[in-house]
């Protein structure tokens, strides 16, 4: 492709926006990665994380090593990210999001299909298996079936639990200004689906693996709104 100022700006603007967003996340939260399960692998993986704030994905993205960050895409709700031109631009160009349809009743396509396509194309994905932002006092909501269906369809792809600490206090739902509290992102050892494992058991195992990464027990009390 010929490099014209136009194509250049089409690549440059999202890149700058991306590094700006990561820089902002670093300044506000001082976020640091912790690797409880050793180094991350470059092969396609499914990172699944707790979801309490819009900042969750940005924080994971910020702490991923650059080579892995380049091939990692967030899975996000199409209903939210296709609503409005700016959101759509950010989702497509800055975040390179895999958009899926949520809501059992009104969806027209299989929500796992675009995620599987991304994995087959060599990308890693970040998903939030609770399905929505957790605004309750519980540290983690029950998981939706999506995680199981991905594991069932691609049994070789490791599922890496990722615990994000404190973001819910940096920017609680509905607040405008962020608090400069310290956050951390802990990556656990990857797990895979056992051939004989039934859905509820697997989801419970994945959920416990994620909860086990919490840095402190007191997080039970500070997780709420």
């Amino acid at each position, binding site marked *: 492709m010929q490099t014209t100022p136009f194509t250049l700006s089409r690549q440059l603007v999202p890149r700058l926006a991306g590094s700006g967003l990561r820089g902002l996340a670093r300044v506000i939260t001082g976020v640091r990665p912790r690797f409880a399960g050793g180094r991350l692998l470059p092969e396609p993986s499914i990172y699944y994380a707790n979801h309490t704030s819009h900042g969750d994905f940005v924080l994971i993205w910020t702490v991923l090593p650059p080579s892995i960050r380049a091939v990692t895409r967030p899975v996000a709700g199409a209903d939210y990210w296709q609503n409005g031109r700016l959101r759509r631009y950010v989702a497509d160009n800055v975040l390179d999001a895999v958009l899926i349809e949520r809501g059992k009743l009104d969806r027209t396509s299989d929500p796992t299909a675009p995620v599987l396509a991304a994995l087959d194309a060599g990308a890693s994905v970040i998903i939030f298996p609770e399905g929505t932002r957790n605004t309750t006092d519980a540290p983690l909501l029950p998981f939706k079936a999506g995680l199981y269906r991905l594991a069932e369809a691609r049994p070789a792809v490791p599922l890496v639990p990722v615990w994000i*600490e*404190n973001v819910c206090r940096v920017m609680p739902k509905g607040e405008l200004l962020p608090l400069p*509290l310290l*956050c951390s992102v802990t990556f656990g050892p990857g797990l895979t689906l056992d051939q004989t494992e039934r859905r509820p058991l697997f989801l419970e195992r994945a959920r416990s693996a994620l909860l086990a990464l919490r*840095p402190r027990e007191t997080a039970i009390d*500070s997780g709420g709104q």
Partner: protein
Amino acid sequence: MTIIDPVVNADWSYGAHLAGVMAAVCLGLVLAATASVLLHRRGRIGTADRLENYVWTWSGMLVLLMLAGLLGRTAIICVVAALSFQALREFFSLIHTRRADHWALLAAFFVVLPAQYLLIGFDWYGLFAILLPVYVFLLMPVIPALRGDTTRYMDRVAEVQWGLMISVYCLSHVPALLSLDIAGYGERQTLLIVFLVIVGLGADHVRTEVARLQPPRPQLRPTSAELAAAAGTGCLLGLLLAPVTPFPAAVAGGLGVVIAVMGLAGRLVLTAIKRDRGISGWKQNDSSLDDESSGLLDRLDKLIFAAPVFFHLTRFLLTV
């Protein structure tokens, strides 16, 4: 009329005072570094490494104090305000708060902290001494109460107030030393900060080494040997540094003991808070998983309680 007449070595300029202290610390560092190398050769690697760590810590401190000595008052206030900000961040990252506290916490970071250091800058003693213990104490709890969330209300309000007192109020008394008007001492107040830091840190380091000689124990309470080591070192360092301070030697030694004992108390209290929260270091988001790595509050804990007491004693004894 002051309670104690300031004793100022008027023959020496401020620069000579500062250079004298720094030269003495440098000499100590060279001796310690040499000892470390010799110990390493003799195969006592553990001791040599610990000594080397101390040499690094003190070298860094020397550079910081030197900069503080050369920089103006405004620069020192800004640097300590930045330290306060980071300390407050570390503290607030570990407390119980809920969504209703969001505005109170924002106000702590972006209104209370700057206001306190501005008052220090304007040298408005009557207000900076009571801003946090009185006005913030009265007004802060109003914000979450207005939002109506009363779950664990007392805990949340108390923890916010504690974080502010430790990270902002106590620390702000370090640059407040710069505004003490001591007859004949002129603009040498930075040396009071140098005195506080060297005595506080020195006493804590000697105490740590004494604690190491004793069998490990689970209790927080320092042994009497630790207490004696800290107080003795504080007294000794106070006496040694007396010539650059406006204190008579006996007073300098006494203040050294007070700084050392308050340092021990501060460390004890902050360690108790860490144990309560199940951490061993304040920088809880560090990359290492064992939480061992230190945060800023781990480094400052021996000065936090000492600073306001040293400030008030100096003010009470030596100013009109």
